[in-house]
């Protein structure tokens, strides 16, 4: 039976980070409204940075988000370093990459197992799951703990990193610690394989909508830090041109800014990276993709979670490689590289778990005078709405609770980080 009039109003979507509402209004079979409202408190981080010494920026901006704290800190440090002419050492670059894998694993495991798997297994949260499928939950916790321990060894704690600073690190793991992390990462392989296996069994909803995919890209690696901004519609731009990609604008129903590039909207995150950087994935990650049935270009946004699982394989294997490299070259207790100047402007970019993140600072005499941060979820909002608008009309013969669940799952697939974008989700069917 078709639903001529439908109003969905999900107030504060759960199992996402931050607060958001989904509002859908169908009248006489016509979609009148289909919005993702961001109701999070505005955070004003960009304004708060002004007047602060440049060294505080990464500590302040990591507090934008507890899940991507390392990502914000890294993008912040890169922006400051580019502004002040700091070139970090090879060891710093390796340690930052390893630390980044820790955060990527932590975040993807949290999202795939605790936030998405309950939908696929038909329960409300990971808590009943602990009763019905304890081995699945224990596996997730084991993997997540290792990811957290990896960050803790490198920067003190994952939320919020301590030892990461402009020009380097203020603390270093010992060779033994690195060796132990390496052993534990190797011992985690069966858990990673079981994760891939789980996602080959779980059925993610079928829905296709091609869009523009945007991710950082660099030669010879599956890029997470620095590189250039690449688009699936072709072309690439240097980081300093980030505003040409993001075109930020505000919409009334949201305290997060929106973005668009070549089309009306674009997607960032694991699926976008997978589509753009597939060739650079670790061979084991490529096999995992084949097992799950992912082949670029993937245009089903629900498969973002599957792409995260592929990245879990990539990051754990690449983390083992980085441990090997670091152990082989030996760690030195390096002093952070000193700034070449105290004034300048710089852009830093990272592909954090949820997509491309930009920090842009202007620094004068050691104090921040201007700042702009563009957050992944903010870039995805218009694309999520585009998906919702395409999805709802195909579902009008279903019952409202089914439509609501499909929309909530869609929003959760993007792994939105609303506290970042300024926080997220409630579905309201109007």
């Amino acid at each position, binding site marked *: 039976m078709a639903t001529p009039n439908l109003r969905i109003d999900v107030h*504060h979507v*759960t*199992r*996402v*980070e*931050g607060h958001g509402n989904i509002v859908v209004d169908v009248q006489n079979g016509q979609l009148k409204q289909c919005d993702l409202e961001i109701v999070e*408190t*505005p*955070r*004003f981080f*960009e*304004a*708060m940075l*002004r*007047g*602060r*010494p440049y060294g*505080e920026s990464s*500590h*302040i901006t990591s*507090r*934008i*988000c*507890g*899940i991507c*704290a390392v990502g914000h800190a890294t993008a912040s440090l890169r922006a400051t370093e580019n502004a002040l002419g700091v070139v970090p050492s090879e060891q710093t670059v390796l340690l930052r990459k390893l630390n980044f894998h820790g955060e990527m694993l932590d975040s993807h495991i*949290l999202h795939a197992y*605790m*936030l998405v798997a*309950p939908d696929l297994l038909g329960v*409300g*949260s*990971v*808590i009943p799951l*602990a009763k019905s499928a304890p081995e699945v939950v224990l596996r997730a*916790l084991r993997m*997540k*703990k290792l990811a*957290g321990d990896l960050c803790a060894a490198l*920067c*003190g*704690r994952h*939320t*919020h990193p*301590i*030892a990461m*600073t402009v020009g380097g*690190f*203020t*603390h270093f793991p010992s060779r033994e610690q690195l060796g132990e992390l390496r052993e534990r990462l190797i011992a985690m392989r069966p858990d990673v394989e079981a994760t891939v296996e789980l996602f080959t069994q779980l059925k993610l909803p079928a829905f296709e909508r091609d869009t523009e995919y945007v991710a950082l890209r660099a030669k010879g690696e599956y890029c997470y830090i620095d590189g250039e901004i690449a688009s699936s519609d072709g072309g690439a731009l240097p980081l300093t041109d980030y505003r040409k990609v993001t075109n930020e604008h*505000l919409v*009334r129903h949201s*305290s997060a800014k929106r973005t668009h590039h070549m089309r009306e909207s674009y997607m960032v995150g694991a699926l976008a990276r997978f589509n753009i950087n597939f060739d650079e994935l670790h061979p084991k990650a490529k096999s995992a993709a084949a097992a799950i049935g992912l082949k670029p270009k993937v245009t089903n946004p629900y498969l973002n979670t599957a792409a995260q699982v592929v990245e879990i394989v990539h990051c754990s294997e690449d983390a083992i490689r980085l441990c090997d490299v670091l152990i082989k070259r030996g760690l030195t207790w390096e002093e952070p590289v000193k700034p070449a100047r105290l004034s300048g402007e710089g852009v830093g970019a990272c592909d954090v778990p949820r997509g491309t993140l930009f920090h842009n600072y202007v620094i004068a005499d050691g104090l921040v005078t201007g700042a702009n941060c563009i957050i992944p979820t903010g870039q995805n909002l218009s694309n999520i709405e585009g998906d919702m608008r395409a999805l709802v009309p195909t579902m009008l013969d279903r019952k409202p609770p089914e439509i609501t669940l499909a929309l909530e799952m869609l929003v959760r697939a993007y792994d939105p980080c609303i*506290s970042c974008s300024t*926080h997220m989700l409630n579905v309201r069917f109007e």
Partner: protein
Amino acid sequence: MSAKPKIAFYEFTSCEGCQLTVVDSLQLYPELLEAVDIVRFREAMSEMGDDYAIAFIEGSCSRPSDEAPIKAIREKAALVVALGACAHLGGINTIRNRHDLGEVRRFVYGDKAEWYDTYPARPISAVIKVDAAIPGCPIDRHEFVRTVKRLLQGRAPELPDHPLCVECKLKENVCLYLRGTTCLGPIVRAGCDAICPTYGDSCEGCRGLVPNPNIEHLKEVLTEHGLSVDQTLAKMTQFLTYQVMEMEAAGHGDPQPAH
């Protein structure tokens, strides 16, 4: 019906890092899940209960529309616990309290500024009575578990009253002052195992000040080491702007170099 105490988590202006640390604590101490019944944890659960004895509030109150829900939590909960620096002190969100807020809004949101409702960020205790606080940005997972256990036993949680330097010395860290770096350790409440100095960075005061902090003594020590008093005190405005502004209003403490 379970007889286990029901607990709920709420968040206002925050990064949700403290709630994530709660998830991590549960992974370290799974027995805690057996002892309580979590009825609301929006970040991790779809189920939502409205009946609870202990409410943990993360985040600061930073807009007029936050007040009613904060007061409603107080009405329901027997115990309200501030979770982390944002809730306990106002924390990082209070940096903006020193700026002209109209101007802050315009800086981030331009001519759409009036769409966004805000006012100076405050700790939860500025809005309702709070029974206990778990300090830190983020909270310390062991301290969280200790606090919950004490609350379940019907005892008030205790926070250490001594300064961070005591813990830092026990860790045998080389004092940052000797390396020419400033640190708030002498006036900040211990309890984090001096994690920042241990990882080579100075304490920024996220756990709040010790009772009766001896700021005059801190200044002497700084001067002795040839370190900048202004820079050190300016560090206090990272997490403690609300407290600094209260001290200034009360006419003691130190006027800060305006950020």
